[in-house]
Structure formats: structure tokens, C-alpha cells
């Protein structure tokens, strides 16, 4: 594929536009594909960037979203804008569907996509941050459901309340990542690999995550760039190969993370009611005294200002009952009693582990994704944004490691990606949250080769 990466680290629209137009003057091919990535500093001007690219490339198939940073050439920036323009030697088409019910949205989208494509790049909001009113409703509902939860005398009764709360959360805020990949893969014939950008901004803001498809705002929905031709999807995590027994898996968790503590969790669907007998956020505050109680108003104000930290170095490790894979869920200090998960937890053990995040092996482990390359064309790396707070400026070492294997690439720092890879036969990844479905809240990366 002929490609050009166009970028500007400028946050001011006029400056960035000048940089981009200068780059576009010398474009030596006619692109049919555009991936547009805005950062927190340029997101406010998305309509103007949309118009700018639409003016130059009205007929390309385009997909775009907000990311945390990018590596283009020798530079890494967390500001400005970056775009990948490509002349793909095959068929490329972007589809999107809006809606609140994950199964319904995936089925509609899958029916339009069909079974003819070789790979899909999907973008969707894992958690959508709506307006003040929706959050006020969430907090009221959280209290209402939690009162009912506490009133139950049996675990099954508690789980029934959590299942109802899960349905509410799925219809208003969360697209469970495993469900999106499961339903989308089923409705596209189960043989098309999918790389998921399950977006959740590092600093949450009203209206984010933001997705644009063929120059139209998607809102709460799923957009997919479908490719027929020479493409390859790979997925990699930085953890050891998974074990063959529960006990060995526990040992691996204890060796891989810090301050590991066994806990009993009451959970159902995507909701967690308690950790060792108390609400999850209260448990976090009792373990980590640095976290003060966060009031609802403070939470909303932070989201409105775009200053809510949506990453946490502390969380829970869940072990899958059949696969013995491990799913990590960060615990954020927030004013809720029932805590939501990003994947369905029914197939995971109740015995789980509170732990602190560490990345054994450092930056080197994150660039190992480049060693999975199978083609010699252009590479789009989706790198875990947790590397930004974990390694700060040392993330340059990840870029150096990638460049040793990849001559032409664009690396995006975004929410830890997900993937559906049919007939997967690689390393037994920690992050296989369901058969052939891969995701973790941190420590995993994706690669799309053209």
C-alpha cells in the first residue's frame, strides 16, 4: 500500500492546517483510505479538521477518533493531529451503526459488512461519557440498585440485582468489549479477524470517546473499516504464557504484579457489588489511603473539564474458569457503589486478586509486538496508553524497538486494544478473555499490517 503519514504537533487549528496543507501538496498518489487521529488538544476543532480533509479527499473511506498520542517518524507527540493516507491495493469500505444495545448494533453492522472481507478495524466507545444529566441519573440509579443489592439475603439475589444493573449500564454507558467482538464476529461469519479500538480516554471528557466515520460523527455506536486484500492482524501482551492450572496462574499473578492480595468478589454480568464484603471503591480507598472520597459533583466537574483520570495503577485480576486467562480491571476512585467492568465477568472465578500494576521487562516487552510482523508493507501499531504514565519519556525505547523491525509505520497510543483472531495458534496469551477474543485493561498491543 502506498502511504503517507501527515501530522502536526500544533494544537491551534490554523497552525496545524498550514502544516497539513504543506504536506498534502506533495502527495504522490491518490488515496482511498484515511485514518484520522485527533489528540485532546485538537479534539475541540474536529469539525474543522473534518472539513479540511473532506475538501481534499471527499471520496476516501475514512475513520477517525481521539487518541492519547502518536509516534510518527522519529517523534512522539501527545498533542496535535496525525493522519494516515493510503492507496490500498484492494477493497476498502467504512460502515457504521449507532445505537445503545450492543447485540443489536453489532448485528445490524455485521449484516451490512457481510462475510467477504479479510480484516476489520473496529472503533467503538468502551465507556461513553455523556452529559451532566446522564451522570446525575447514573448516581441515582447506582444508589437505588445498591440499596436493593444490600437488602438481598442470598448471593443469587445479589447477583440478580447486579445483572439488572449490568443491563442498565450496557444500555447507557458501556459496550462490553468481549460482547462487541463476539457479536460482530458472529454476524460477519466468524472467519474475519477484527482489531478493536475500544476507546476510553485517559482523561475523560463529556462527549468522549469521539468517533468519526466517513466524515460523520458516530456518537454511541460502532464504526468499522473493512479491508479486502493483503492485510494481517496480530495481538500481543507483555505477560508470561498462561498456565495450565488455577494454582499456577495464581503464582504467575503473584510474580507478575506488586502487593497481590487474594479477595472474594460478588459479581454478575459487567457489575461488581463487593470486594471482601465492601463496595469496590471503598475497598480501594481502605487499601490505598492516598485516595480521598470523591463527591459526585467533583466527579462531574472533572469530566466537564476533561481532567478525570481514567487510568489507575491498582485493580483486580480475574481468572477465567475454562481458559485460565487473566483479565485485569483497573479500579478508579469514583463516587459509585456498584463498580462496572469492561468485559462480562460471569466466566471468571469469584476468587480474584487485588494488585498493583507493574510491567516486568519494561519497555522492551511492549515493542515485541513488532516481532510478530508477517508482511513487509506499512504497519499500524496500536499501543497501550498505560505506557504513557508508566514510562513517561522512556516510551521512546518502545519506538526504538519497533523501528528495529518496521521500516514504515505509524504508532498510536490509545486504550489497550482488543482483537478477535479466528483459529488463533500463537502464544497462549494471558489476555484471551473468551475463545479467540483478546483484551486486557493494560499491557497489550495490536498490529494491523498493510
Amino acid at each position, binding site marked *: 500500500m502506498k502511504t503517507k503519514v501527515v501530522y502536526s*504537533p*500544533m*494544537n*491551534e487549528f490554523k497552525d496545524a492546517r498550514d502544516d497539513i496543507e504543506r504536506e498534502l501538496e506533495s502527495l504522490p498518489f491518490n488515496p482511498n483510505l484515511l485514518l484520522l487521529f485527533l489528540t485532546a*488538544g485538537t479534539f475541540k476543532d474536529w469539525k474543522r479538521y473534518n472539513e479540511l480533509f473532506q475538501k481534499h479527499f471527499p471520496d476516501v473511506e475514512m475513520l477517525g477518533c481521539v487518541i*492519547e*498520542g502518536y509516534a510518527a517518524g*522519529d*517523534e*512522539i*507527540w*501527545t*498533542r496535535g493531529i496525525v493522519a494516515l493516507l493510503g492507496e490500498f491495493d484492494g477493497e476498502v469500505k467504512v460502515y457504521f451503526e449507532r445505537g445503545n444495545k450492543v447485540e443489536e448494533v453489532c448485528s445490524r453492522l455485521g449484516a451490512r459488512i457481510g462475510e467477504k472481507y479479510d480484516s476489520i478495524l473496529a472503533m467503538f466507545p468502551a465507556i461513553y461519557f455523556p452529559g451532566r444529566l446522564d451522570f446525575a441519573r447514573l448516581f441515582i440509579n447506582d444508589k437505588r440498585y445498591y440499596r436493593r443489592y444490600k437488602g438481598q439475603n442470598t448471593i443469587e439475589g445479589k447477583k440478580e440485582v447486579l445483572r439488572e444493573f449490568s443491563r442498565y449500564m450496557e444500555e447507557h454507558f458501556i459496550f462490553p468489549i468481549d460482547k462487541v467482538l463476539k457479536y460482530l464476529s458472529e454476524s460477519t461469519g466468524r472467519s474475519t479477524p477484527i482489531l478493536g479500538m475500544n476507546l476510553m480516554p485517559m*482523561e475523560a471528557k463529556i462527549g468522549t470517546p469521539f468517533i468519526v466515520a466517513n466524515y460523520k460523527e458516530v456518537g454511541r455506536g460502532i464504526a468499522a473499516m473493512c479491508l479486502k486484500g493483503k492485510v494481517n492482524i496480530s495481538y500481543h501482551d507483555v505477560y508470561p504464557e498462561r498456565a495450565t492450572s488455577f494454582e499456577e496462574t495464581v503464582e504467575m499473578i503473584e510474580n507478575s504484579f506488586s502487593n497481590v492480595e487474594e479477595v472474594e468478589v460478588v459479581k454478575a454480568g459487567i457489575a461488581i457489588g463487593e470486594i471482601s464484603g465492601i463496595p469496590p471503591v471503598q475497598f480501594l480507598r481502605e487499601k490505598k489511603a492516598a485516595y480521598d472520597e470523591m463527591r459526585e459533583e467533583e466527579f462531574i466537574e472533572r469530566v466537564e473539564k476533561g*481532567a478525570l483520570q481514567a487510568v489507575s495503577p491498582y485493580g483486580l485480576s480475574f481468572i477465567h474458569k475454562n481458559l485460565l486467562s487473566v483479565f485485569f480491571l483497573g479500579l478508579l476512585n469514583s463516587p459509585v457503589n456498584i463498580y462496572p467492568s469492561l468485559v462480562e465477568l460471569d466466566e471468571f472465578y469469584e476468587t480474584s486478586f487485588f494488585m498493583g500494576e507493574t510491567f516486568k521487562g519494561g519497555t522492551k516487552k511492549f515493542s515485541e509486538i513488532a516481532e510478530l510482523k508477517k508482511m513487509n508493507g506499512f504497519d499500524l501499531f496500536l499501543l497501550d496508553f498505560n505506557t*504513557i*504514565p508508566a514510562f*513517561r*519519556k522512556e*516510551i*521512546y525505547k518502545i519506538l526504538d524497538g519497533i523501528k528495529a523491525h518496521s521500516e514504515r509505520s505509524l504508532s498510536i497510543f490509545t486504550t489497550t486494544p482488543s482483537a478477535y483472531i479466528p483459529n488463533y495458534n500463537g502464544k497462549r496469551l494471558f489476555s484471551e478473555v473468551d475463545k479467540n477474543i483478546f483484551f486486557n485493561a493494560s499491557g497489550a498491543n495490536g498490529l494491523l499490517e498493510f
Partner: protein
Amino acid sequence: MLSAISRILDTLSMEEGVKMVVLYRIDGVPLFAKLNVPKREIAPTLYWLEGQIKEMLYQISTQNLDEASFKFGRTVIMLYPVSRTTVLGIMADEEASAYKLDIDIKTSCRQIGKLVTS
């Protein structure tokens, strides 16, 4: 070269929460300064910094430090060596996204480093 350095510092100074960006010579002489706030707002910090900067730069140079930073009220001051003879100083509000800023500063240092050593 001067206009290229100026543009890099402009980019960095426009980062949210950044109050000032200065490129120092290792003996403490400021080569470039970009302010993002009125001078009077940071005058007391600048006055204090003037008395400290030579010592700090000397420490960075002789101890071979990768970076040095200190906090002054709600203001954070960070110093990053760019080359053997230049150091980049950034004054930022404590609420600025420190880890993201760190990456953009590193990129700017690499860019300026290439210009001053070529």
C-alpha cells in the same frame, strides 16, 4: 536554525498548563524565552529562578543528570539537558498533564538537540 528552534519552543509553550519555556546556555544565559502568561504573573518565580538557575545548570552538567525538577507553590519547574551546552527549562502549572508533557518535552529536546549539534 534560530527560527526552527523558536518554532519548536512556540509549540511547547502553547501546551495547556505551560507558563514559560526557556532555552538556557549551560552558564545560565537564556538564549530563547517564550511566555504563555503575563510576565507579572510569574515575575516572583522568575526572580527566584534567576538566583538558582546557574547552580542547577552546573549540577545538571557536572552530575550528568537526565533531568531536574522542583515545585514552587503551584508551579513546577523542570530542567532537561538538550545538548552538552544547552538546557531546556519549562515552567508549568501543577495541574498540567505531567506524563504527557514529559513526552512532548523529550521530543522537543531531541529536535533542538539535532539543530544545535548539527
